[in-house]
């Protein structure tokens, strides 16, 4: 947690304040978010977990500026979000690469839009491809590389514009188990190296406990935050997942989710 110079209180990197989102549905309005408040501090990696339909993607899309909230506001560095912008990167579950651009060309997109000089673009692209372990694939088209590599490219593309916050919506959801755990290690190392503030949605409690410093648990109908966990572990790596403390922590969060599901089921 860093203190902003000249201010008495720390300012969150990303903050959702009293966020509401209604969607018109076939049987009345769907309340996708109801009075949701979350904070992500500078340099933090925070995870959102919750059952399907509890508004996780909606929250991320509003933070990215792709959707408007019905009420409430999202602040980045204390300033309200009014639309999409390169200061908030977003990584989707489905691969969203430009199929006609090479891996390097995809990473360059945001930099071209920014109007950087060609030399600067080339240098930054090289830098991020290096960090992401993609240097070998720079000239490959997305369809020529594996799903894991495609998702790395998407992360590299989002990071290349150096956003204040990286938003990730189930980024590893479509990957097989081995690739997924490799990608988790990889995200941890990127986070350590770059210190980018990250807010990540995941279905896997284990993934959330392994990766994040804090976890918000959400519940559906209406979509809301029901709990916040501070994750106590320091050394993040895959060896952690066999530790009894880790397992019991995962169970604790899991139980809460299950309980929530059974409450919904008996309604």
């Amino acid at each position: 947690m860093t203190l902003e110079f000249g201010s008495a209180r720390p300012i969150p990197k990303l903050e959702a304040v009293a966020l509401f989102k209604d969607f018109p549905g076939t049987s009345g309005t769907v309340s996708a978010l109801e009075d949701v408040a979350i904070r992500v501090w500078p340099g933090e990696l925070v995870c959102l977990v919750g059952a399907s339909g509890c508004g996780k993607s909606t929250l991320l899309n509003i933070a990215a500026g792709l959707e408007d909230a019905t009420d409430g506001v999202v602040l980045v560095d204390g300033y309200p979000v009014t639309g999409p912008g390169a200061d908030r990167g977003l990584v989707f579950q489905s691969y969203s690469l430009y199929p006609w651009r090479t891996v390097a060309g995809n990473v360059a997109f945001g930099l071209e839009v920014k109007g950087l000089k060609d030399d600067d673009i080339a240098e930054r692209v090289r830098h991020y491809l290096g960090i992401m372990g993609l240097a070998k694939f720079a000239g490959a088209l997305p369809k020529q590389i594996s799903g894991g590599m495609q998702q790395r490219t998407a992360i590299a593309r989002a990071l290349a514009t150096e956003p204040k916050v990286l938003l990730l919506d189930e980024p590893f959801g479509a990957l097989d188990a081995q690739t997924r755990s490799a990608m988790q290690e990889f995200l941890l190392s990127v986070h350590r190296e770059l210190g980018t503030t990250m807010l990540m949605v995941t279905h896997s409690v284990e993934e959330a406990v392994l990766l994040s410093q804090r976890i918000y648990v959400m519940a559906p109908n209406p979509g809301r935050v029901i709990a916040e966990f501070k994750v106590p572990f320091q050394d993040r790596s895959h060896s952690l997942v066999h530790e009894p403390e880790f397992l019991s922590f995962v169970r604790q969060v899991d139980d809460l989710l299950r309980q929530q599901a059974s409450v919904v089921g008996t309604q």
Partner: protein
Amino acid sequence: MEVSAPSATDSLPPPGYTPVRRRRSGLKLREELPQRVRWPLVISSIVLPLVAWTMLSASGLVNPLYLPTPAATFAAGVKLAQGGLLLSDMTATITRVAIGFGIMAVISIPLGLAMGSLPGIRALFEPMIGLIRYMPAPAFIPLFIIWLGLGEAAKIALLVIGTVFFNTLMSADVAALVPKTLINASYTLGANRRVVMRKVILPHSLPGLLDAMRVNLAATWNLVVVAELVAAQSGLGYRIVRAQRFLQTDDIFAVLIVIGLIGLTTDMAFRLLRNVAAPWARP
């Protein structure tokens, strides 16, 4: 649990085992066809009709006035070519196609892209275009002759009217196929609407646009001959009408084959262009 490495003998097949070879018959859905099966089929596709034509015309069952032999057709074609008529007819027809197709593309591609990306534009144009495109283009010929006379303008107008609506709707569908996540991803990378149009929707649509143009170029070729059959002093269609007056079926056959060959060539050129311009979308 004991885990042992497999030994070499483990992987030997049991005695009496014969490996099954997969056969490629060319009749399985979407299977990849080996070249040595493909080429005989491709060649037969051209040779068999030619043989049937030769046999039928040589058998004496049909009056050669109705069905000339391939040799007579070829000779007629050579005669037309040597007299310079074939070249001037081809030039006239190709010029009409080029102008009509060009005007059509300049109108329909921007309109189609706008309709496919902006629902408001689509709602404004789609109902009317959807209605007009079912009106048969040749039925407009009398109107165009009244409005524009018997000259080039009426013929070009026919080519444009007959293809512009189809190409617009096909281009709109192509643009609408750009995934929403791709557009959203671009916004989060700092792009505005104009940049998304230029750097995302346009390149993503390129192969589809070329496909639509290829289809409608074929339609333009059909229409240009129709226009020249009705009223023209030059062109391949006009040559057919002339030949009909003098019962020169061999000339008609020769011109028809030339039309087919030019069409096939432009079609292949468009395919090539698509593969060169959008190698990422190659199947």
